[in-house]
């Protein structure tokens, strides 16, 4: 990959589930070390995009290229799959379900280092200690099973395990949404440090506009499978152009906020999607 080339290129991506169009003609690029937010509510298609990028869903149409390599079609070999894992990793919202309950943090990280880099045990041990240190786990926590850890600690394990593959792109799928406010701030600071130190690019899938502002440079706003707005994150939040983005922005509680009720019609009462 050459300098200045996008680390992730998504072109005219479409996903249908039966008659439902979950993702409709979505294109974007992420530059090395930059971060993109995909903002939207339930049913917007944001998580489906993330699942297609990591290979958990196959696009109906369109292409996805990470580090110049196409990944729109399933991997053909274990080697191909490992290469893809070295390009893109994902951290989910709920570390309960994404960590193996029988593996300690150290074992989970060691396994990734062995599979992805094939390093000898000594080098793996050193790197495991570096990674657990980077995410702020102490020695006892690094040797604990997930059930003995708090939600914030488990999310650190998931982040350390994802980083072990040395991905160019880390997808954060609502990764801080379930954390307590005081812990969320710790993890957001950690993610900012990691980006500064490793030049990894983040794709943040989130409904939380304050978190989006804190962590990303650019944002796209999704509504019912379509991109309704894109641009620098600050500009989108300070001066939203699309009516849906404006509505999203105005729905965030703040001092003096008065929640307003839309004029209800039978059509809007059928589902919770605005507009």
């Amino acid at each position, binding site marked *: 990959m050459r300098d200045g080339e996008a680390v992730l290129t998504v072109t005219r991506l479409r996903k249908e589930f039966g008659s439902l169009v979950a993702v409709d003609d979505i294109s974007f690029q992420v530059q090395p070390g930059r971060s993109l937010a995909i903002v939207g509510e339930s049913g917007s298609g944001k998580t489906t995009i993330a699942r297609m990028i990591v290979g958990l869903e196959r696009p109906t149409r369109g292409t996805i290229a990470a580090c110049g390599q196409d990944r729109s079609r399933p991997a053909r070999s274990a080697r191909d799959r490992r290469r893809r894992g070295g390009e893109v990793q994902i951290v989910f919202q709920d570390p309960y379900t994404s960590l193996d309950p029988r593996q300690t943090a150290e074992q989970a990280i060691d396994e990734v280092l062995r599979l992805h880099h094939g390093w000898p045990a000594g080098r793996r041990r050193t790197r495991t200690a570096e990674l657990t240190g980077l995410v702020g786990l102490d020695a006892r926590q690094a040797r604990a099973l997930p059930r003995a850890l708090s939600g914030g600690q488990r999310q650190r394990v998931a982040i350390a395990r994802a980083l072990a593959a040395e991905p160019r792109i880390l997808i954060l799928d609502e990764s801080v949404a379930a954390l307590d406010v005081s812990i969320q701030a710790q993890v957001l600071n950690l993610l900012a440090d990691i980006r500064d130190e490793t030049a990894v690019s983040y794709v943040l899938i989130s409904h939380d506009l304050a978190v989006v502002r804190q962590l990303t440079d650019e944002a796209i706003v999704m509504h019912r499978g379509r991109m309704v707005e894109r641009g620098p994150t600050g500009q989108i939040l300070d001066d939203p152009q699309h009516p849906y983005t404006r509505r*999203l922005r105005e729905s965030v509680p703040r001092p003096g906020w008065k929640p307003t009720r839309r004029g209800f019609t039978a059509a809007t009462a059928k589902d*919770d999607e605005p507009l």
Partner: protein
Amino acid sequence: MSDAALLDVAGLTVALPVEGEQREVLRDVSLQIRPGEAVGLVGESGSGKSMTARAIDRLLPRGATVRGRIAFRGADVAALSGSQLRGYRNKVAMIFQDPRAHVNPVRRIGDFMTEALRTNLGVSAADARTRAADMLASVGIEDGERRLRQYPHEMSGGMLQRVMIAAALLTEPALLLADEPTTALDVTTQAEVMAILAELREQYGLSMLFITHDLELAAAICDRTVVMYAGQIVEVRASELLHGDPLHPYTAALAAARPDIGQQSSRLRAISGRPLSAFEAPPGECAFAPRCPHAQPQCVAAVPELTELDGGLSRCARVAELRGQLETTNA
């Protein structure tokens, strides 16, 4: 104040059986809710905010030990049983974060909504259905008759939460205990549900205890906000002052830890460590002291009292000297 209080909780201490021992989850919680008042209850995991609401509605798990007194319109709630307790729960109704976990999936919405009216209040089935359909209309669900024949799985989360609110209001409660009712909803749906609650509160003169982890949401919709940490109340403050002028270092730290939607900051003011439950907190000292940037020797010498200052209450040994010095915005 307690004379005029609709609900008066005094010295509530609750312990739950865990692995063969009683572990404290609430310590000496006292709060009053006046008629028509909306009180926010804010805290992180283990703070005891949900347990407080459950204790008020007599919904604690089996084996719970309860000390202190809960009085509703002057009557001791602990003494209620049978039909009295059902009647109390009609007057003090509760709505939850996850409506699907609190509704029987194989019963129709209409049967669920009208049950309390028919069985507790002796309303005829036809009359109860009419009232249920009318109440659905007032929470923004038209076509009520058809909705009453539907099952929960035929509705979205936001729709079902509106149904739960309507069901809770059918028995004409005086107090609504709302336990994170919008946390699982999209932000635009949250705004919708909050607007509905605000309208209905005004219309029925309803009091509300609104439990949330979201300081900004509580501040925006409640008259007063109570902040809990490790099973104790650490601050009570008029909501409009809570965010910009808090009394307790924990409240200030919570406000400062949240990212700001208006600007990116180079670093957030994270609070070190993690939130504790009451039974994990070090005994005989301020529960927040281990994480508090302002902690001094006097903070670990004794549990601070809840003291009054500038119209609020704060459980901080240094409350007076820290006045005006607490940072509430991120770095």
